[in-house]
Structure formats: C-alpha cells, structure tokens
C-alpha cells in the first residue's frame, strides 16, 4: 500500500477529499455481512486456530509475592506490584500486575526473537464465565504490551508469536493478601 509520509499538505488534503468521497456500502449489505458471524461457532474458530500453532506451556520461574524472606538486615516495603517471570522455549516473559484506579493493569515484555505478536488475557474457566471477554493487546516495540481495566480474578495469559502459542499458568490478579 502507498505510504502517506511523502505527501505534501496539499496532496494529503486531496487524499482526504477522495477518502471522504469513498461511499459506504448500503446498510442492508453491512448488516448482512455482520450477520454472517452467526454461522461461525466461536469454539470452531478457536479449535482451528490452536491447530496451526505450536502450543507451549510456560513455566513460572519467579514470583515476587512468593519470594522467600529477605536476608538478615535487608529492609523492604511490601509492594502492591506483583512481579512474575516465566520461561518458554527460549523466551523469557516478564509480567507486572499493579492496581490502577480500582482495577488492575498487567504490563509485560517478551524477551526473545519475536518482533510482533498478540497477547490475550481471559478469565480462567473456573471463574464460571462460559465465553469470557478477552483483553487483547499487540506487542509493541521491544516486545512490550499493556492490558488495563482488569478486574480481580484468575486469568490465563496466552501469547501468539511466530507460529507459537505460549500459554502461561493461571495468574491471580488481585490485592496482596495481608
């Protein structure tokens, strides 16, 4: 596709004029196309998706809330931010869970060969939601991602990168138990 970067302001304005003139499809056609979703059972979509990816289970290597007591003489203030590290097939996955404005934010970074991918976070099946809403983010520069507005609960984080589907063990998102 043609980039817009080399366009002058006048050329860009002309492009906007042509874009505004691009007609919508008739509403009935749009509604019918949206309605085609009803013929595609989500479970089939997921099954087929998983079939073409190598499914990899990640292993937890560090949990700041489960870390042992500090060495004698070392002081620390308990942090609200939970830091987790996972490893999976040559990749290290760094996750931080922090409370933000009544909800939680999950930020992370994949350290490995991938420069693009998608991160999905869904409530674990045991939370009783049949078709839970997914929180989705794409990997940014340096393999970083951020998911916000997460309610407390137990979640499964899935990373789809370079034909691999990396599934992390369930993560409990919530306040630190006192």
């Amino acid at each position: 596709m043609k980039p817009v970067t080399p366009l002058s302001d006048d050329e860009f304005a002309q492009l906007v004029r042509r874009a505004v003139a691009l007609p919508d499809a008739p509403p009935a056609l749009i509604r019918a196309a949206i309605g085609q979703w009803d013929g595609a059972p989500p479970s089939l979509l997921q099954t087929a998706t998983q079939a073409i990816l190598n499914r990899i289970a990640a292993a937890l290597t560090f949990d700041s809330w489960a870390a042992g007591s500090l060495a004698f003489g070392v002081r620390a203030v308990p942090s609200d931010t939970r830091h987790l590290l996972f490893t999976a097939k040559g990749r290290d996955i760094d996750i931080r869970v922090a409370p933000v404005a009544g909800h939680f934010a999950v930020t992370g970074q994949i350290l490995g060969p991938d420069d693009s991918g998608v991160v999905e976070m869904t409530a674990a099946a045991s939370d009783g939601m049949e078709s839970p809403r997914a929180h989705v983010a794409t990997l940014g520069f340096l393999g970083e991602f951020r998911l916000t507005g997460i309610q407390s609960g137990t979640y499964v984080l899935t990373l789809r990168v370079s034909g691999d589907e990396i599934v992390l063990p369930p993560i409990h998102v919530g306040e630190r138990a006192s």
Partner: protein
Amino acid sequence: MHNLTDEDDAAIVARCRHGEGAAWEVLVRRYQRLVFAIVRRVGLDEHAAADVFQTVFARLVAHLPRISDPHRLQAWIVTTAKREALLAHKRGQRTVSMTRADDDDGEAAEWDIADDSALPEDALADLQQQNLVRQALDRLDERCRELLLMLFREDGDKLPYEDVARQLGMSVGSIGATRSRCLAKLRRLVEPAPTPR
C-alpha cells in the same frame, strides 16, 4: 473508555478467534467501504455486487482461523474481493474458465481471469490508501471529524464556511486554523509512529 475501533487488525482478529461478535462487526465496518469500492469498480449490477460483497465476508469468516499474519489482513481482503468481483463479472459475460481447484484457503477454486484492467494495482493501492484515511477519520475526535467531513465534501455538496461555522458553533475566522490542526491530527493517525532505533 476503551474502544475496539482503536485496535489494530491483529488484535481484532484475535478477538474474533475468541468468539467476540463485536470484533467481527468492527472488522466488517472497517473494510466494507474498501470491498464495496472494489466491487463497484468492476461494474457489477446491484445484485451481483451484493452477492460478491457477502461472498468476501463469508470467506473471511471461514478464513479467520487460518490467518497466520493478521497484519496482512487487508491484503487478503483486497485480493479476495478483486478475484471474486472479476469472477462474477466474467460469469456475467459467460466467459469463465476454471483452471485448478486450489487457492490460498486450500478449499475454493482459483479461476483464470483474463482481464483485470478494471482493477489495476495502482487503483487498488489508491483505494486502500483512501480506506486507511477513512478509518482514521472514524477514529478522530468528533469535532474534527465533523469539520473535515463538511469541508471535504464533493464539489456539488460543498458548504460555505458560514454554514459550517453555524453548524459547528464556531467562528468563520477560526475554521482555517482548526482545519489545519485536524488534518495534522488525522495525519498522525494514518502515519505509523516512527520506531526509535
């Protein structure tokens, strides 16, 4: 508030694979103009155009699980729309010839399309660029979007600045500067952010 329309194709495809119907609606609305423009350009009658439009989205639903690189979704849609539109056009002329049963889905037929002069690559690239700008317009804040949609209407529908100012509750004198600011905002939405290296 989080808005699905701000998410890129890869995230929307992931949501679709997860069974989110709202994400599918975003996908349809994001590409309906592009598919419709391609179909219209081939010169199909109303019924054939409607059939092709639905066929493209039906194939997209079926193809979603097999998309290995969702960032190339637009290229897949353009190729499919072009092929289906030309095929329908040829069917109308009763000059279709089928060569082999294999396409990038591995399911449907690939057709020998003799004449695709109605859809040269340059024209398709222009349409994709226009659709990208139109998508960005949809994500622009409401005031800027309304202003640009009014100012960039086709010549026959153009509104005088006085009417634009009255409808948007702004002074005529401020339209020029606001137009420039809104175009700059739109440009930032269209252009990919530079990656620091």
